[in-house]
C-alpha cells in the first residue's frame, strides 16, 4: 500500500511539473522545441491557453499536497481534468500525427489521474479504514452490561454471525437481547423466493426503494448501553429492511448517545453497505465503537455462483450437476465465526472515556 506521504509527494511532483513546468515551457518553448526537433505548435493562442489551464491544475495539486483532507474534492477535479487531457492528447497522436513530445504530457496526466483517484480513496472516509483494521473505539456511556442485537436476515446467514457476537459478549459479562426486524411486506421478503419476488427485491435494492418495517418496540430511554446492528449486502448496499429501521424517524432516538457497533455479512462486497449503516447510525446520534465486515467462505468465482444457486434452490450443493464447482458450505467460515466471537469480547471490554468516539477519529 502507498502511504499518505508518498501520495503527498506525488502531488507535490505534479504541482511542480504543472506549475513551474508550464511557466518554463511558455518562456522557452521556441528554443526548447527547436532543440528537440519538435514542430512548433500550430496555434500559439491554444498552446498558451492550455498551458494556463495546466498551471491551475498545478495549483490544485499543491493545495492537495498542503492539506489533503481539506482539499480532497479537488482530487476528483484534477483526476477528471488530467484524464480528459490525456484522452485528447492520445486521440490527436493517433489520428492527427501529434508529435511524441506532446504525448509524454498526456501519458504523465493519465498516470496522475489514477494517482489522484487512489489518493482520493485513501483520504476520504478514513474512519472506516480504522474501524475495519479492528480498532474498538472507547465508550462514552456508563456500562449497564446490556446489549441489544438488531438483526434482519432473509436467508439465515446473519444468524450465525449474531450467535457468535452474542457468545463473545455474554462470555464477558454482558446480557443480550435479540430483536428481529420485521418488514411490513412479509409476502415479499420471504425465503425461499420465487423468481418474480427475487427480481422485485433486486430492482428495489438497486433503485433504493425503501422497505417499511414494523416500528421497533424499544423506548428511547432503554437501558442497553450497546446496540449491535447486523446487516447483509443486497446489490452493493444495505439490505432494505435494515435500512428501513433508520428511514422511520420513530426509531432513530433509540440510537442517540448510545454505543453502537456494526456487523456486515456479504458475498464479497461490504464497503458500501457498511458505510451506509455506519453513516445512518451516526446520523441518529449513535457513537460507533466498532465495525466488522465478513465475506462468505470460499473463493471466486465459485462463491458468487454458490450464492446464486443457494438463492434459487435454498439448499447447499444444488443443482447436483454443478456440485463439483459450488462451495461445500454457504455463509461464513469457521475462522470468521471465531473472529466474530472475539469481536463480541472486544466490544464487551471496550474502554470507557468521556470523549465520543466519532469526535476522536475525525469523520470525513
Amino acid at each position, binding site marked *: 500500500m502507498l502511504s499518505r506521504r508518498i501520495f503527498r509527494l506525488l502531488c507535490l511532483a505534479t504541482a511542480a511539473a504543472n506549475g513551474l513546468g508550464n511557466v518554463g515551457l511558455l518562456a522557452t518553448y521556441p528554443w526548447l522545441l527547436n532543440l528537440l526537433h519538435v514542430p512548433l505548435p500550430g496555434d500559439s493562442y491554444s498552446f498558451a491557453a492550455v498551458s494556463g489551464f495546466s498551471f491551475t491544475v498545478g495549483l490544485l495539486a499543491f493545495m492537495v499536497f498542503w492539506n489533503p483532507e481539506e482539499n480532497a474534492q479537488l482530487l476528483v477535479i484534477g483526476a477528471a481534468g488530467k484524464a480528459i487531457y490525456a484522452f485528447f492528447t492520445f486521440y490527436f497522436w493517433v489520428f492527427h500525427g501529434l508529435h511524441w513530445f506532446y504525448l509524454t504530457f498526456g501519458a504523465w496526466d493519465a498516470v496522475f489521474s489514477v494517482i489522484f483517484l487512489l489518493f482520493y*480513496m485513501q483520504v476520504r472516509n478514513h474512519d472506516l479504514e480504522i474501524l475495519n483494521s479492528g480498532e474498538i473505539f472507547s465508550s462514552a456511556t456508563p456500562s449497564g452490561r446490556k446489549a441489544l442485537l438488531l438483526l434482519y436476515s432473509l436467508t439465515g446467514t446473519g444468524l450465525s454471525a449474531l450467535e457468535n457476537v452474542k457468545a463473545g459478549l455474554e462470555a464477558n459479562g454482558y446480557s443480550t437481547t435479540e430483536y428481529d426486524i420485521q418488514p411490513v411486506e412479509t409476502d415479499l421478503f420471504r425465503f425461499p423466493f420465487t423468481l418474480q419476488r427475487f427480481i422485485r427485491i433486486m430492482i428495489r435494492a438497486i433503485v433504493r426503494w425503501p422497505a417499511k418495517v414494523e416500528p421497533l418496540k424499544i423506548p428511547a430511554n432503554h437501558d442497553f448501553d450497546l446496540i449491535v446492528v447486523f446487516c447483509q449486502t443486497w446489490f452493493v448496499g444495505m439490505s432494505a429492511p435494515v435500512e428501513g429501521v433508520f428511514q422511520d424517524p420513530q426509531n432513530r432516538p433509540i440510537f442517540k448517545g448510545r454505543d453502537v457497533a456494526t456487523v456486515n455479512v456479504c458475498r464479497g462486497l461490504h464497503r458500501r453497505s457498511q458505510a451506509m449503516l455506519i453513516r445512518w447510525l451516526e446520523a441518529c446520534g449513535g457513537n460507533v465503537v466498532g465495525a466488522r465486515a465478513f465475506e462468505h467462505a470460499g473463493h471466486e468465482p465459485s462463491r458468487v455462483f454458490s450464492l446464486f444457486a443457494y438463492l434459487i434452490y435454498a439448499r447447499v450443493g444444488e443443482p447436483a450437476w454443478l456440485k463439483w464447482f459450488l462451495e461445500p458450505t454457504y455463509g461464513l467460515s469457521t475462522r470468521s465465526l471465531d473472529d466474530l466471537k472475539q469481536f463480541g469480547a472486544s466490544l464487551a471490554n471496550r474502554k470507557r472515556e468521556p470523549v465520543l468516539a466519532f469526535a476522536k477519529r475525525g469523520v470525513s
Partner: protein
Amino acid sequence: MPGYVHNLVDLFTLAPDHLLMSLAFLAAIMAGNDLVRTALMVELTRNPLVHMVLNVLTLLPAFLIAAILFASAWLHPTQRWINLLYALLLYVAWYIGGAITKLARRDTEGADPGFMSVGALVTFPVGLLAALIF
C-alpha cells in the same frame, strides 16, 4: 460520417488499422471503471443515483466488451475470432483497475472476480455468436 466519429468508432471497435491504440484506449476505460467505482463506493451513502451508478459500473465492462465484440465482428469480420483473445486482455485490464485500489487502502474489496465471471457469461457468448454470424 464526421471524421472524429469515424475515429472514435475505430477506437471502440478494435479496428485493424489502430488495433494497439484501440486496445490501450479500451483497457484504460476498463481500469478506469473500477477506479471510479471504488472511489464512489463509500460516498453519498443515501443517494439512490450514486447507488444505481455503482450497480451499473459493477457489470458495465462486461456489457461494453460484449458490444465491442459484436460491433467489431460486424465491421471487421477478418478478426472476429482473435477478438475473443483481445476481450480476455480487456478483462485483465478490468481486473487490474480493481486490484490497484489496494494501493490506496487495505479495506477496499479490490477486483471482483466473482462478478467478472458473471460478466464473462455475457461477454463471451455474445462474442462467439458474433464470430459465428459474421
